[in-house]
């Protein structure tokens, strides 16, 4: 009995500390179980493999976005960086594959660096700075490739989408690496701690000796790199460069991170939650299609789910802060009476 109580207490404590609402994890697990049991098309190996394949670009870009959001910023340019990456890849890879990959990733990091410098050194609001770079980068993409096309080496496509016996092995590796590296950097590294500190309270972090500018610039570079990687992956998926392909990822990446419990106000969140957010978003689209739900209803439901999950998370944070405030006030009152 005492053991059970201790376990329950530990679970409650874990839930309290979790970045994403624990209810979300339980709810998602329940939904997946129901889908497995009652929607035969969902559990087919082909469908599960497709889900994995299409989750990679969103996972990469949402992971990068999570870094920026934790630093109390926002990166609207990720969609345009994906488009740029496909365009750069499609004009460079046919000449030299390795150089093409390096240039593509470097272009994304360069946009991230520009965003970081704009936000920290020039003190431009992150929303406006990254909106500006979105417009610039979209224009550059159209200059590089006014319409879709280009030649992508087959060896690159085969590698990025590689599967063994129908199992998308490379995809699984990408999934694990992106999630794993993200979690380790944020939770275990000094950089991660500094990023949380900077996003949570900029002044306090500064006083504590954190090099906030360097930390924030690095978060934008990581986001640019992640978006460029997503672009490379999309290049393999669409086997061409396309100046429009990244646009939908702009909002989806923010939605995935926020769904997973990352706060738009900074200092709170994590990659594990983002992974859950990505799974939810990718699964929603899939299940809506499998259930043949009308597109307009799909949009209504997507919006409702986003508001419900984020609203629940906010409500939970609010009630928790009230509880803490109440406890401290009552402690103060007790102290005074003493």
């Amino acid at each position: 009995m005492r053991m059970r109580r201790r376990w329950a207490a530990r679970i409650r404590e874990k839930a309290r500390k979790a970045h994403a609402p624990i209810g979300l994890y339980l709810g998602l697990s329940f939904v997946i179980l129901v889908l497995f049991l009652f929607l035969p098309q969902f559990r087919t190996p082909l469908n599960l493999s497709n889900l994995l394949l299409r989750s990679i670009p969103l996972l990469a870009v949402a992971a990068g976005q999570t870094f920026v959001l934790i630093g109390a910023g926002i990166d609207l340019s990720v969609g345009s960086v994906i488009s740029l990456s496909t365009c750069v890849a499609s004009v460079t890879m046919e000449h030299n594959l390795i150089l093409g990959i390096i240039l593509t990733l470097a272009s994304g990091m360069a946009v991230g660096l520009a965003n970081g410098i704009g936000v920290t050194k020039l003190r431009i609001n992150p929303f406006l700075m990254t909106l500006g770079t979105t417009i610039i980068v979209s224009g550059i993409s159209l200059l590089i490739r006014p319409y879709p096309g280009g030649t992508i080496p087959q060896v690159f496509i085969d590698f990025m989408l590689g599967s063994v016996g129908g199992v998308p092995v490379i995809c699984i590796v990408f999934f694990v690496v992106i999630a794993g590296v993200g979690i380790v950097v944020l939770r275990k590294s000094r950089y991660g701690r500094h990023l949380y500190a900077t996003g949570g309270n900029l002044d306090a972090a500064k006083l504590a000796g954190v090099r906030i500018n360097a930390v924030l610039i690095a978060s934008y570079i990581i986001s640019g790199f992640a978006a460029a990687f997503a672009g490379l992956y999309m290049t393999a998926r669409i086997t061409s460069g396309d100046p429009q392909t990244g646009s939908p990822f702009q909002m989806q990446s923010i939605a995935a991170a926020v769904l997973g419990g990352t706060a738009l106000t900074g200092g709170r969140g994590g990659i594990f939650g983002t992974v859950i957010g990505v799974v939810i978003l990718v699964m929603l689209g899939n299940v809506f299609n499998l259930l043949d739900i009308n597109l307009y209803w799909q949009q209504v439901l997507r919006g409702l789910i986003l508001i419900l999950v984020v609203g629940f998370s906010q409500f939970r944070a609010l009630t928790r802060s009230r509880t803490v405030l109440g406890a401290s006030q009552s402690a103060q009152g007790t102290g005074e009476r003493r």
Partner: protein
Amino acid sequence: MKRFAIGALSLVFLLGIAISAMAQAPSYTQFGKYKKEPPYKIGFSYHGGGIDYDIQFDAAIKWLANKEYGSLISNLYMTDAQFDVAKQQADVEDLIAKGIDGLIISPVSPSAEVSLINSLYDKGIPVVVVLGEYDGNKYTAYRASNAQDFGRIGAEWMVQQLIKKVGSPKGSLIVLHGVPGAAAEIGRWDRGAKPVFAKYPQIKIVGEGAGQWAYDEGKRVITTLLAANPKADMIWSCGGQMSLAAAEVCAANGRYDCIISGEDYNGLFKFWIANKSKGFSCIAPTFPSWIANTGFDAMIQVLLGQTVQVKEVFPPPTITDDTVRNYVVPSLPDTIWVATALPKAVLQEMYGKK
């Protein structure tokens, strides 16, 4: 020797004729290759979604499936990609997961779906590509309107009008794009109209903007571009409701003489007829939604085991000053696209009397 030479030459000549005839002859699908027992599950992955054209398009396909092939079809699954390449790929994968018997697809981009469609074709799934530009060559059937002709016809008419107006192909041009990078935009502008204007070096492009094929965005863009270039001679519009927006902005500036290209939008036709006496003139190549219905027909035929022509590209029917009155539907709202397979009664039911 002479006879032999004449005989050999004749043979070569005949062979040449035969080979060129074979090269030009349309190819047909293999008889019975995709034959299946009905009823069929058909998947339709549409490139857009949400705008007037798409709503009408959606209704036309469902009407056809129900009226003509009701007993042959058990399920018609339709998805809208909303001009999102990644979403269209996901949609197609989902349709395949649902076990469809055949896929009809209007691609978002001419190239992005090529590898996906190739892989489905190689797996033996019948794929019919419809409507727009497509760069691949592996499909069961292809039914499209020639987007390049759409752009070319409008541009050539505009140049002729310019010559009539100023005596030479010399003037200024504003270009109103749809969605940059989209298949229809590439076909109509990059591969259709642009090469026509490029032949006349004295025609200068003085402004360009993307109206997203929407009325409000088109109006905002053209208002700015016309304010910057109030004497522009021509506006080439990539079609959609943007053409009406361009015509209205010109009219508001007293520029009924501005040469504009349009599309088969009922609102534009009403404006056109109402302002013809003031000097307004236009041309409307069409992007008929009934072409997708021909793709649907092709899909049903191959599933029934019949043979169909692999590739059919229809020239865009064009509406001019002389014929616009035959196409306008005054009793219906502006938002109707007149080149549709939907009967007027169905349109009345959908949109109601004005």
